[in-house]
């Protein structure tokens, strides 16, 4: 049995909202798991059930070989970092870190030792006597992390802890969280709706939609091999391009091009997905893109344009190319780098 085991976990709120549907998931010891999905998909609810802050309507959660459904959050030995940090406003940083240890009846010297170690690790030693209101956003973030680390819990839970920081600090803290987790080696679940954050942090990633885990896997697996239209659209930046098409006898016919010998026995209406980075410029390519807008990022360009009636089709070109509005580009799809989804169910068919 793995370290954290969720079996057919369902959450129905008292008002009838079904936030999580029969979800099963196993997390190994030391693993960094990320829950990613759009707002309202049930990520926080799932996390909070692990923490014990929400009752589990149906199903079982096992932590470290022990059923914890009925265990009080104070007894679960989990630590959580909240979006707004939830620091204790009336206690200084030292006591914020020490509080959980004090409640466990640990003696004073050990507490001091642990708090000082954690503070050093997070570089907050200079603020130990300050109240949280006298800290910057990034410092508060570190204190919140410190409060989790100092107790050396079985599992860390993060509920969008970076979303209150500005873009630069977010990237920096993202890196630090990853490094810290690797150093401390504690099993972690991290909730976010930012797919870049999810990709960079995760050992494994659970893409959640509408209370269901749509796909579970390493970031690269999910990027290379999305199992559904939703996952394909959610993971990857800029977003995958989607075109309506028809699949018949292994031949895909889109509005103005065809692809033959497709490995699929599916027949019917489909959605064709192509990532912007999987297109290459050639002569006499499949697709003719009429350029409408170019975003120059330096390292590469994001070219947006029109193919017949399809608008905002995106192509990522190398940065050294000069492409102007009004140009027409001839593009090919890299070999086998296209995704075909059943139009009605959204399931992958190739």
């Amino acid at each position: 049995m793995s370290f954290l085991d969720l079996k057919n976990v369902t959450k129905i709120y008292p008002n009838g909202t079904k936030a999580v549907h029969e979800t099963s998931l196993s997390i190994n010891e030391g693993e960094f798991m990320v829950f990613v999905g759009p707002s309202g998909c049930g990520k926080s609810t799932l996390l909070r059930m692990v923490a014990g802050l929400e009752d589990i309507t149906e199903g079982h959660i096992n932590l470290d070989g022990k059923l914890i459904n009925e265990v009080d959050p104070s007894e679960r030995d989990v630590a959580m970092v909240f979006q707004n940090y939830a620091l204790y406003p009336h206690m200084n940083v030292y006591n914020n870190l020490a509080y959980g240890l004090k409640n466990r009846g640990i003696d004073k010297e050990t507490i001091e030792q642990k708090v000082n170690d954690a503070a050093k690790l997070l570089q907050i030693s200079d603020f130990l006597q300050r109240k949280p209101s006298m800290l910057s956003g990034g410092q508060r973030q570190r204190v919140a992390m410190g409060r989790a680390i100092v107790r050396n819990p079985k599992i860390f839970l993060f509920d969008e802890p970076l979303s209150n920081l500005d873009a630069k600090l977010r990237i920096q803290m993202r890196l630090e969280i990853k490094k810290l987790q690797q150093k401390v080696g504690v099993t972690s679940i991290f909730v976010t709706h930012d797919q870049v954050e999810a990709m960079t942090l995760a050992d494994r990633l659970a893409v959640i939609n509408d209370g269901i885990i749509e796909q579970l896997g390493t970031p690269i697996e999910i990027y290379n091999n999305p199992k559904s239209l939703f996952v394909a659209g959610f993971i990857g930046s800029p977003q995958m391009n989607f075109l309506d098409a028809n699949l018949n006898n292994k031949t895909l016919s889109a509005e103005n091009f065809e692809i033959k010998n497709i490995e699929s026995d599916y027949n019917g209406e489909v959605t064709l997905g192509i990532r912007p980075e999987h297109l290459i410029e050639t002569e006499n390519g499949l697709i003719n893109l009429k350029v409408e807008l170019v975003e120059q990022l330096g390292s590469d360009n994001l070219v947006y344009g029109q193919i017949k009636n399809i608008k905002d089709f995106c192509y990522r070109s190398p940065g050294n190319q000069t492409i102007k509005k009004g140009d027409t580009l001839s593009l090919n799809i890299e070999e086998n780098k296209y995704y075909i989804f059943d139009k009605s169910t959204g399931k992958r068919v190739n």
Partner: protein
Amino acid sequence: MTRLITSGFSHFILFIGILIMIVPVWMIFASSTHTGLIINTQGLQMFLGDSFYENYLRVLLYKGGFFKEITALKMFLNSFIMATGVAILSVITSLMAAYALVYFRTKYATLLFWMIFVTILVPLELRIFPTYSVMAELNLVNSYFGLIVPISASAIATLFFRQFYKTVPDELLESAKLDGANTWRFFIDFLLPLSKTMIVAMLIFMFVFGYNQYLWPLLVTSSEQYWTVVMGLKMMSGSIVHRFAFVMMSMVPPILIIIVLQKHFIKGVFQDK
């Protein structure tokens, strides 16, 4: 220029207000330092006389009442015990009632709260006889317990604490829970320190409330040993200057409490910001 005039004008109004409040108090104080003879022959005095010690000491130590059993000093002690008891007890009960109302998942918490709140519409005077007979049954007439307990449940304080608790973010409770705090610890380690400012304000408020009680102590005490200052004000006999001195002294405890506790009150307000 116009600003100067309007601000001058508002200061003038304020000044008048202050005069209206201060002058009578001053006149009583000034008069209380003269001999009875001067007041009786020349009326109220605006300037200090030289009988201050004589008058005030006599009032404090003279045994008054019908049975000549109680000194003003004892009345102050009684009032202080009663007011402090009421203040502390009602703050404790309201803190805990509000805690239960906000944090325990009681199904009818809102209904319960409004039932408590409605008691504001039922003043003590309305329930004074049933309350008295309960105290009489329990043999608590003529005791500090009887003086304090029946008026130590405050719907207003409960309201204030409840509204305050409702503004405390849920994450704080959740975070504390994960840190191993149980129900009591959360109350003691979090809600109490966070509501310090409000606790001090309520202590002042309830102290003055308890100090000002008249009808209830009058009813529940028959022994002069339990007379309070406010009762004494009514019962005092003797020279007019002594009564003035007593009136002056009766104002001291509430003012003192406000001065002493106000420091914490203001400190609390600034620390929270």
